[in-house]
């Protein structure tokens, strides 16, 4: 959609916090099975916020230079960081019962938490859904057309505003879902959004802008390298990721799957 | 020897032959009109020769020297400059600044960061003179984004002219302006060009202008040169008039 949203990480964090407070605190006594179904609650809240943000803060800037989006979403990042602190306080929130409930299983010598399979499954489903949505539905076609040329799409009768707010909302849903699904395994902490953002950008840079397959591949690469890094070279694990991103930008500026704008 | 000569110059865009084995020649001091329907390859040819993108095959010879692989700034130093169909100017800088930039660049002075630009008196004097030649002196302190379309077209040419090229490519210098402005632009451009003995290649759609101002006409179609001759010869060339009458409406 050619929107750069520096506050995207905050939506991920909000997804995590909402789910954690819902599942981990408020309804902690409820039957665990129900709690699993409530996991995506964070995603819906993030989506709702996105639906409000796009028309108010992002739409005024589509006609202006892209860098203004960076500036306004950076301001938004600062606002949301404190909003999260205001609502949920400075301490981490966890929903770890959902994580430990599923136990773990062994792969050879290693023990692997079963919950992670749920995360992988969700990630896979989300990827498939998003891909199908963008490339196989009429809405997705309208979205791609609008993203390429807003004026022309509007001249063809597309309600550009509605397309964009809907698409942006879906994007925020995904961010929130990411946070929500991850929170049982790691608590929701302040600053998780900012950290996640840079990772997300690295994924997109490596995978390529405008490419869903790229985002998936990029995420896998980042995930794998991160784990290798943590085990083998914990000090430079972070640095390595950023260096890989820089390297990819050097060698293949459009990313692995990206189409050069 | 021709000032400019291309040999089997070719450029593809995907499957399209934008420039198809073109042998294009320009003699010293000529004013050549490059005509053809939209998509015939005129701008692509100019783009390749000026260095906007490299050819897929073929050669470009400038005074007999192979310039095919030179960078844009090297071609400018060699003496090739161009203006643009869709006006390309430094919109937030004044007209003076726009022209002065070419002069600074030409004199290799743009690398100077320890001296204030205002100190370079001769540069600014020359910029004023050039603006005067193009009839733009009055608006010289206005930013380029704030002048009329006709003035912008003239400025676009002036910026290229300030590089003191030997060969100047003008891409549709009169497009998008009124008929009266067209004539004014062409009068100024051709008088400036001829007084300095600059060789010019002008892409033009307006056949009246083409026949009035050019020494020679080269017609292109589908990336190839269709015809090449004096205005009289071209007028009598059935192939040209047949293909272009319908497409070229001025």
């Amino acid at each position, binding site marked *: 959609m050619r929107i750069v949203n520096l506050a995207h990480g905050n939506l991920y964090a909000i997804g995590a916090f909402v789910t954690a407070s819902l599942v981990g605190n408020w309804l902690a006594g409820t039957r665990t099975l129900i709690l699993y179904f409530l996991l995506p609650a964070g995603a819906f809240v993030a989506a709702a916020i996105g639906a409000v943000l796009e028309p108010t803060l992002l739409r005024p800037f589509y006609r202006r*230079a*892209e*860098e*203004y989006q*960076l*500036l*306004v979403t*950076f*301001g*938004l*990042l*600062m*606002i*949301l*960081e*404190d909003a999260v*602190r*205001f609502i949920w306080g400075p301490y981490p929130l966890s929903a770890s019962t959902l994580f430990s409930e599923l136990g773990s299983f062994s792969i050879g010598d290693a023990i692997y938490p079963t919950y992670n399979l749920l995360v992988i499954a969700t990630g896979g489903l989300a990827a498939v859904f998003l891909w199908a949505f963008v490339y196989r539905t009429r809405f997705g076609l309208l979205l791609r057309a609008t993203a390429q040329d807003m004026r022309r799409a509007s001249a063809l009768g597309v309600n550009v505003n509605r397309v964009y707010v809907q698409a942006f909302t879906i994007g925020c849903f995904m961010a929130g879902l990411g946070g929500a699904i991850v929170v049982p395994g790691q608590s929701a902490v302040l600053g998780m959004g*900012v950290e996640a953002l*840079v990772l997300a*950008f690295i994924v997109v*840079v490596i995978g390529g802008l405008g490419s869903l397959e790229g985002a998936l591949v990029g995420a896998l690469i980042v995930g794998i390298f991160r784990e290798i890094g943590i085990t083998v070279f*914990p*000090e*430079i*694990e*972070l*640095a390595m990721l*950023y260096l890989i*991103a*820089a390297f990819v*930008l*050097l060698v293949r*500026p459009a990313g692995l799957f990206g189409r050069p704008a | 020897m021709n000032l400019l000569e291309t040999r089997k110059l070719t450029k593809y865009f995907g499957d399209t032959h934008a420039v198809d084995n073109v042998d294009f020649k320009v003699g010293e001091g000529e004013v050549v009109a490059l005509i053809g329907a939209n998509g015939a390859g005129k701008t692509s040819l100019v783009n390749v020769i000026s260095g906007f993108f490299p050819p897929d095959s073929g050669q470009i010879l400038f005074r007999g020297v192979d310039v095919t692989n030179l960078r*844009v*700034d090297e071609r*400018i130093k060699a003496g090739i400059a161009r203006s*643009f169909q869709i006006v390309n100017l*430094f*919109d*937030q*800088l*004044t007209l003076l*600044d726009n022209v*002065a*930039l*070419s002069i*600074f*660049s030409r004199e290799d*002075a*743009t690398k100077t*960061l*320890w*001296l*204030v*630009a*205002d100190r370079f008196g001769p540069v600014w004097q020359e910029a004023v003179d050039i603006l005067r030649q193009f009839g733009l002196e009055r608006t010289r302190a206005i930013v380029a*984004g704030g002048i009329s379309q006709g003035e912008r077209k003239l400025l676009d040419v002036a*910026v290229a002219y300030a*590089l003191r090229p030997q060969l100047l490519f003008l891409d549709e210098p009169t497009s998008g302006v009124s008929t009266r402005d067209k004539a004014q632009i062409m009068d100024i451009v051709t008088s400036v060009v001829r007084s300095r003995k600059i060789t010019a290649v002008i892409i033009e759609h307006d056949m009246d202008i083409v026949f009035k101002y050019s020494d020679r006409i080269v017609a292109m179609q589908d990336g190839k040169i269709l015809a090449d001759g004096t205005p009289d010869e071209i007028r009598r060339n059935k192939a040209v008039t047949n293909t272009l009458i319908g497409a070229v409406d001025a």
Partner: protein
Amino acid sequence: MSTVAIPLTQGLSIKTVAWAVLIAAALALLPFAVGEYQTILLAYGLIFAIAALGLNLLLGYTGLLSFGHAAFFGTGAYVVALMVKYFHVQSMELFLLGTVGASLVVAFLFGFVSVRYTKIFFSILNLALSQVLWSLAYKFYWVTGGSDGLRVPTPTLLGGAIGVTDDKIHFLSHAYYYYVLVLFLACVLVMWVIVHSPFGKALQAIRDNETRARFVGIRIRQYRLVAYLVSGVFTGIAGALWVPLNGLTTPDILYWPFSGEIVFMCVLGGFQYFTGPIVGAVVFNYLKSWVVGATTYWQALLGIILVVLVLALPTGIVGTAKRIIDKARRAASA
């Protein structure tokens, strides 16, 4: 960012010189007029102004928005801290020398990679590269002190001629303040010459129309790289001046939100104007100090200000002030 229709170049008039002299004099007399705390606060402001001036060479004049300038500020600060830690250096001049060298190296590495790109790519790439430095500072704790950081004692000035005696605050609010002030004025002068030079015009040409700049014979990458180097050195110097004042350097100044703050300063002042980053940095400094004291949610407040700025006042303080003054003038002469 070529969509703002306000020209950048302004000549040097008697009025400008007069104003500059007046302001410099006011700044010089300040320690005698206000207390030590206020003087030190302004010193911070002047230091950030140097950093913002550096950033704006890229942003306002070359059209490149870097979200990674924390890297240079942090390089300056950590070079000083490491020179203290490993070489027991005390001289501010040596610190500055080391900073300039290190900033040039970092700027060359980062710049070489990033000047091939523009717009969002450029911004995010710089962000990612600066994060490399942040993560190194964070993780290599036996060198950098990790999240605890490194302490830096007060340095000696002018080759050891002036050093702190007993009263550190007095030293910082007098001798060190004047040192910072002189360097600030020097930086302003140097930057003024650079942006008004033919090179500065070439940068603006690149900003306005990269294609035309290319076809006027300017080699885009080279010029961007030089601008990047100058920009990095300026911000690095700011970092080096900052750390003795702060007494401590931590990875926070390498963390990318701090890059965002430097950008904020330029936007606040008005990145389309030479004085914009200076005004923006000084105002931001006061703003942040006030806001941090006023509420725990100061980050949100700053965020709101930034959003309002970008939405409603894209020309910043200087631009808006100019507009108001012009309107008043026209109304007065009508």
